[in-house]
């Protein structure tokens, strides 16, 4: 296969791409050697390379990507429980307070016949956060198991989570607007609940998690495998 021999990554060529200005820089030999031995990867953290053009810190792969992403994901999963069980807001009408969770809010909208709105809030507040958590957990497990299953599709899944995650904030903003507008003393009032803060934290933590996950890890397994195959064929 002459085609596969043309494929070569920046890391294989001893280069690092700047994540901002995309300038390729050569990694000094001594750091390259440390990089190859995975056990001593801690040492590379001490050596910081800077992009010659924009001076940003550059690295071949996001340092400690898996640990950081797991930490953020676990924090998000833990906070997902209060986000769904605690009230996101309380609507007080004529002195009677009615606390709403995310799910009961959607059910109330359905009861009131506001189907399109119920669907929108369901997608933004329930479907997208769960989907995003599941996709990120799936990607993390696939990388840790060194899976070679459909890397292109997994990379596209990653891009989808990166893009849609922030839209879950819509419910938090709705609560903010309702709290601001509905302030008529005891007759009508909306107060924000702890669930809203937990939910906003889940959205923010998963946004950070998507940011610390390095999709190049998906492809490293593939590249190592083709590298090995190439060496075997030469024997």
């Amino acid at each position, binding site marked *: 296969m002459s085609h596969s021999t043309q494929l070569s990554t920046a890391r294989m060529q001893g280069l690092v791409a700047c994540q901002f*200005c995309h300038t*390729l820089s050569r990694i000094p030999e001594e750091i390259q050697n440390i990089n190859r031995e995975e056990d001593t990867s801690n040492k590379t953290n001490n050596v910081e390379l800077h992009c010659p053009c924009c001076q940003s810190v550059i690295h071949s792969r996001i340092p400690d990507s898996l640990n950081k992403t797991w930490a953020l994901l676990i924090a998000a999963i833990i906070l997902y429980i209060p986000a769904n069980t605690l009230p996101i807001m309380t609507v007080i009408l004529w002195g009677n307070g009615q606390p709403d969770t995310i799910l009961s809010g959607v059910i109330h909208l359905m009861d009131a016949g506001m189907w399109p709105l119920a669907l929108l809030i369901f997608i933004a507040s329930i479907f997208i956060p769960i989907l995003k958590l599941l996709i990120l957990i799936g990607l993390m497990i696939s990388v840790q198991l060194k899976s070679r299953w459909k890397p292109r599709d997994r990379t596209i899944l990653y891009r989808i989570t990166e893009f849609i995650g922030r839209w879950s904030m819509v419910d938090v903003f709705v609560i903010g607007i309702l709290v601001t507008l509905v302030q008529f003393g005891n007759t009508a009032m909306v107060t924000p609940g702890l669930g809203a*803060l937990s939910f906003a934290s889940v959205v923010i933590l998963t946004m950070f998690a998507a940011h610390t996950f390095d999709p190049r890890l998906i492809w490293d397994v593939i590249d190592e495998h083709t590298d090995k195959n190439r060496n075997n064929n030469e024997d």
Partner: protein
Amino acid sequence: MTNQGTQQKQTAETLSHMACAHCDLIQKLPAMQVGEVARCIRCNNVLYRKQKNSLNRALAFAITGLILFVISNLFPLLSLKAMGLTQEGTLLSTSISLFQAERPFLSLIILLTTIIFPLTTLLGTIYVLMQVKTNRINRYTAPLFRFLRSTDAWGMLEIFMLAILVAVVKLGDLADVIFGISLYAFCLLILSLSFLSYSLNPHDVWNRLRDIKGCQI
């Protein structure tokens, strides 16, 4: 115009090879025409977008956006009329009312995503583009543009716009919702911001910074 055209052609050539940000594959950039997009052959990630007049258009949309942002914050976006009382809502009052409702963190999140990040994006983009266009960059230009690129996802005004629509439908049954003067400016602001992010090609800024600094690849 022609002068700038040739300049952009030159700068596109300075970045002859690119490593895909999502799969690390090194690829030679093809000769591209305006409007064309180069994608990674392996993972389909967008590598390079060739755009016409990106910096001028982005600057125009950023300045328009800044003016609209100021107008959006001067007057109420929405008012609610019930029992002879009127309650007004602006971007800032949303953060303030959450702070008063003893939710300081929620208030901070809303302040950052609806005011601070959108404003720094607009001001910062104008500043960087002005510097790049007049060839007067200093050592803060590159770090500032890096900051703007990495905080791009945290300005959430378009999501706030959707939230306004949801709130209007929700409140419509219970009370009179009055659209404020600023709401029209706010709608236009959302348009300018999306045109800004569409027309601003970060590659063009980096290429110009590389040109001015004479940085070799």
